[in-house]
């Protein structure tokens, strides 16, 4: 196994190993490993999928089949910040289309695109479970709720100018958010550094200030 991913960072290698240990069957580790591979290879590239195939003992075609089923494993390079704008029904009722317009307008890219400098990707997504704070967006899968056209523009500009090293939901909410789905409670110190969910055992988690 290590022979295959020996070029991966030490961190990602040990993440891969611990993920495989978490499951009774190797193939179950497929999706978690795709996140790790996407960290290592920037996105779910062919090379990333080949590595995951050899780690789980299935064919590359099987990995592709699974990876392409889900929306969060990206087949093309994604910017450092991935802005996912929900335009499902409840956000739609609360003017999500304006938020999307604002994000597309400010970044200059359409949904599915990436800015020239490769810094920001924009996508239109279906419901992200923030309907109580509609319209909502996620940046690197960290949620901001209660946006407006203006706040969305400000959020994009902030990402572009301030280049936050860690994307923190609470920080974004404080700066740009409004109505929330529920009381979030205390600040969450953890955030995402890459467009991959910030989840400890695997993913792009890092503690912010």
């Amino acid at each position: 196994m290590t022979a295959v991913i020996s070029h991966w960072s030490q961190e990602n290698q040990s993440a891969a190993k611990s993920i495989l240990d978490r499951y009774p069957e190797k193939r179950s580790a497929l999706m978690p490993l795709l996140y790790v591979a996407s960290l290592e290879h920037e996105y779910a590239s062919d090379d990333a999928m080949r590595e995951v195939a050899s780690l789980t003992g299935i064919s590359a075609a099987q990995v592709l089949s699974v990876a392409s089923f889900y929306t969060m494993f990206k087949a093309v390079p994604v910017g450092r910040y991935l802005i996912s704008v929900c335009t499902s029904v409840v956000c739609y009722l609360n003017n999500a289309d304006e938020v999307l317009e604002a994000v597309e307008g400010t970044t200059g890219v359409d949904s599915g695109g990436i800015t020239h400098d490769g810094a920001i990707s924009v996508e239109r997504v279906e419901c992200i479970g923030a309907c109580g704070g509609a319209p909502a967006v996620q940046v690197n899968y960290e949620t901001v709720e209660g946006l407006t056209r203006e706040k969305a523009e400000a959020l994009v500009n902030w990402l572009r100018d301030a280049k936050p090293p860690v994307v923190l939901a609470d920080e974004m909410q404080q700066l740009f958010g409004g109505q929330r789905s529920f009381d979030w409670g205390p600040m969450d110190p953890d955030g995402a550094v890459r467009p991959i969910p910030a989840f400890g055992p695997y993913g792009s988690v890092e503690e912010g200030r």
Partner: protein
Amino acid sequence: MTDKILTVRMDAYPADSQTLSRYLDTGGYEALTKALDQMSPEEIIEEVKASNMRGRGGAGFPMGVKWGFLAPAEPRYLVVNCDESEPGTFNDRQLAERDPHQLLEGIAISSYALGVHHAFIYVRGEYAKAARRIQNAIDEATEAGYLGKDIRDSDFSLEVTVHLGGGAYICGEETALLNSLEGRRGEPRLKPPFPAVEGLYAQPTIVNNVESISNVPWITMHGGAAYAAIGPERSAGTKMMSISGHINKPGNYEIVMGMTWRDLIFDVGGGIPDGKSLKAWIPGGASAPWFVPDVHLDTIVSIDDVAANGSMIGAGAVVTMDETTNVVAVAHRIVRFFAHESCGQCTPCREGTSWMEAVLERILQGGGRTEDIDLLLDISDNISPGLAWPPAMTTICPLGPSAVSPVTSITRWFRPELEAMIAGSEVAVG
């Protein structure tokens, strides 16, 4: 009488309800200790049966009855469904982020009752924060001996694994979820066999929703009968309702069922903003057929009453629409959602949902034709013959038929509006 079970702690201690210390301070893990020290697995199952609690994930299947189906083979698994992706639903997110130990204690008690030694929590990929909170709680609880090996000096051991999804609503369907957890495409399986007989890795598996499991500590502590005594007979217990859309006070509310929709929308939810009137609402998430004020406002919020009125309470997502709402556009958004989320294995769902999306889009863009209404209904009928609810299906799972709900709803309640839009567009188009 108790009227809140799940949200008591987070309401009282918003600053730290997710921590182990607060959880222990407020009676946490006492139910687990009681279960391990004083109760046999069978007794717990009996209490859950007696509670009459119906699964909160949408289908409303009695939890105790499902547990009773678990086949004897070893190993067995418990899988907690935290894939919550249905538009309008966000209450599992709150339960996971704000009181993860309550969920874990429920998992530990349930696993003990079911003879499970490895439980999984499948969290949708977009809920990274919920996953972090749960993982932190697992680490704390393991450290403190509430999870892991020989829990509380008993000979019961339990490992809990958080599994992050990859972005696919269909993985909320329990068998699609199991496929996904096995590292496969999230395609629902043919049933039978049901998961309780052949689930994860073809072993007996119970799949329950986050909210369902979060109720288990309370039931263990206070007894099934006490739970059953809350609310209407066949809608026992409290229910988390997510209220959103055009509403003054969007949010999650833990309610006792039995009130009217008027109470729920206007009292609990604070009514419609800007003094506008209510045009329609979805009583149970994007899948559910819509309700309208003239007919349904004074009907009862309960699983059976809503079913009797041809819809469902589902996972408890209420979406309100005010008088200005373009219902065709809303229907289009919902159909688009299901088309996007269709796993694609069934022909009627894969082709039918996209077809309906295209027709609705064409109507919205001014290209509607008179025959489109019949066409939409006939496509719907080919996905869900008879257009009733709960739906008859030509598909494997109810996702396809769910896409039919908004179409039948607008043709049923707002046909003149739809016709006018088509007529206007015919004029406009020329």
